[in-house]
């Protein structure tokens, strides 16, 4: 997997496909995750990373998904996700102004004589030591995904490592208006289910 550098995410082509980053605001309900990943798996797309956590409103979750999608189908995937009843908003952050970050926890086993060098390298990458023992270190690094790739490659050169990456989290730098459907009063008007007027293209 190749990641581009820079503050704004600019994914490069990976073979025929291209990594797409999708940000979703979803209802915090059982089955919501399954519906969303179903949109992708039903089309044979592989998820590269996925993160979910609650938002300020505990009823809602924010999801960031990185997925390999044929560029011509990106818009269709977003539309299909927006169609899901549990999804309040799906946005494609691939080209938009957005900040993308990921965290990696790296455990490295190393001989005593390379410890100083490792700490120096870690400092260059802005990584912190979160645990140390006679066997080695556990390091925490945060950055854009490509920087983490580099960090991990460097650490690998010092010895045996275990890596756990958090997956990408992303935030749009644009303010997007969140449109929600109003509550539908039950009774005479609701019978045929035609909701209130809402204009769209």
């Amino acid at each position, binding site marked *: 997997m190749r990641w581009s550098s820079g503050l704004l995410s600019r994914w490069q082509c990976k073979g025929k496909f291209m990594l797409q980053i999708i940000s979703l605001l979803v209802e915090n309900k059982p089955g919501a995750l399954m519906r969303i990943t179903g949109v992708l798996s039903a089309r044979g797309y592989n998820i590269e990373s996925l993160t979910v956590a609650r938002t300020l409103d505990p009823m809602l979750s924010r999801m960031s998904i990185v997925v390999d999608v044929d560029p011509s189908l990106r818009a269709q995937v977003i539309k299909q996700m927006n*169609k899901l009843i549990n999804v309040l908003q799906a946005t494609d952050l691939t080209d938009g102004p957005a900040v993308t970050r990921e965290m990696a926890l790296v455990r490295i086993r190393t001989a005593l004589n390379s410890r100083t060098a490792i700490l120096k390298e870690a400092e260059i990458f802005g990584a912190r030591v979160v645990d140390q023992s006679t066997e080695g270190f556990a390091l925490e690094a945060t950055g854009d995904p490509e920087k983490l790739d580099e960090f991990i490659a460097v650490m690998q050169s010092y010895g045996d490592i275990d890596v756990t990456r958090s997956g990408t989290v992303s935030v749009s730098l644009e303010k997007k208006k969140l449109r929600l459907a109003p*509550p539908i009063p039950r009774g005479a008007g609701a019978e045929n289910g035609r909701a209130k007027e809402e204009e769209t293209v």
Partner: protein
Amino acid sequence: MLLECLVHEKVECIFGYPGGVTLPLYDAMYDHPIRHVLVRHEQNACFAAEGYARATGRVGVCCATSGPGATNLVTGLVNALMDSIPVVALTGQVTSKLIGSDAFQEADTFGITRSCTKHNFLVKTVADLPAAIHEAFYIAASGRPGPVLVDIPKDVFQGQAHYTPVDAIHLPGYKVFTEGHTGQIRRAAQMMWEAQRPFVYAGGGIIAAGASAELRELVETLDAPAVNTLMGLGALPSTHPNFVSMPGMHGSYAANMGLTECDLLIALGVRFDDRVTGRLAAFAPHARVIHVDIDPAEIGKNRTADLPIVGDVKRVLERINKVLNELAPADREKNSGARRAWWKQVREWKNERPLKPEFSDSEIKPQHLMAEIDRLSGGQAIITSDVGQHQMWAAQFLRFNEPRLWLNSGGLGSMGFGLPSAIGAQFARPDKLVFSIVGDGGFQMSIPELATIANHGLPIKIVVMNNGYLGMVRQWQELFYNNRLSAVELAGFPDPEKLAGAYGFKGRTVEQPGELRSALEAAVKEPGPYLLNVRVSQYENVYPMVPAGGAINEMVFGPAQPVAV
């Protein structure tokens, strides 16, 4: 409790099959006014509910038990999803405590049906039940309709609670776009008047939205030729002078040539299905496209729309018609010469290669059969069909002068749909003459439902178009697989007279063309159900035909030497 929710949703009729975990529900139904129709297989419960929904536009309801009951619903649910039919399926689930323990008749219905439904629910407490049921009905019927499943554990059925009416439905993520964009609507009307060769391509969305009158007004205002897709037959009456026919793989020459040569394609409630478009790159190559659909995900899915409008096609057409009429005094005459020439061209195509029924003195041609049924129906009867050759011939030769008369499995193409959907349709419309036209293959998939028909004395006229083969597959084997007929011969068809007799109604076989008319008339006269087995010519193929992957103007018209187009 559940039944009270259903009463509030004005449900009159449920098609279902009971089982262990739905016992509490069935006990409550014992002395409840909601009618339950016992089918003989859960798949047919869903098909019957679809027949009910397709014939009326109201939500069809079906019910099955946990495990095998729920898994048997799956085909029906996908069928409803593909054709955008409002259905609510209620399934029982094992007691909450047992979920996930591989209990008897347990299946992960919620997981299995996730991709088979527009939305689904697993209700965990009786307090959640009313909201789930009302949301299910709302989701099923609104926007682009579809199936919704509510999975209910046995202890929730048993839970005692008072029904408190739900005031409002909160679905913040479910946006339904109805009105359409005012600017786009105006531009659409302008494009329509500017076009020299406009062509209306109307589909099932017109029927779902109840927009037939608006479609008719549009077509008449523009005086444009129009086609109805397989799902849209009846949207514009078949006898309307502007109606061309059905387009697509087995569509007419005029319909497909019109789509290919037009300069403005007015696509209304359609999804540019591959069976209509053929090779997409060659579909309507000269046309700008106006696409009206209630589902934003349909816009630009297969064909890029030059002018997309997301909205309820009924509302959008009302508004387009208004603008068209406003603009008419200035614009109507602008391209009238070109439009007259266009109509002349379309009529020439129509005359050049009309859809003509074939007749023979020695055997009954399938087209002859359809023509005879059409004579009795007069474009007024409800016709349900299965899937295959008979479906295509019926779509080609039967007239439908109202919407909601032609019920068939379009998107999914599920065999076995014809008979159970007729049951649903007959319950929904007891006043209507219902023909169920089925092939000998699909009929044998749904034979158990003869018992349901007999039980209720439903006066359905079952017409089996019997060619002794799985005809459509045979046709493809003949044309594309060197006529190596593999596993398509249906030997052993039962004697219809004995079969119907076993269920207590009448049936017979007709083989001679001369007897066909009187046999059909006798079937219609019969007050109860009737099974008419019609032996038709075995090796007849459906033409015109666009080979899969071909462009729709590259039609094949018959087995003989291709005639120069």
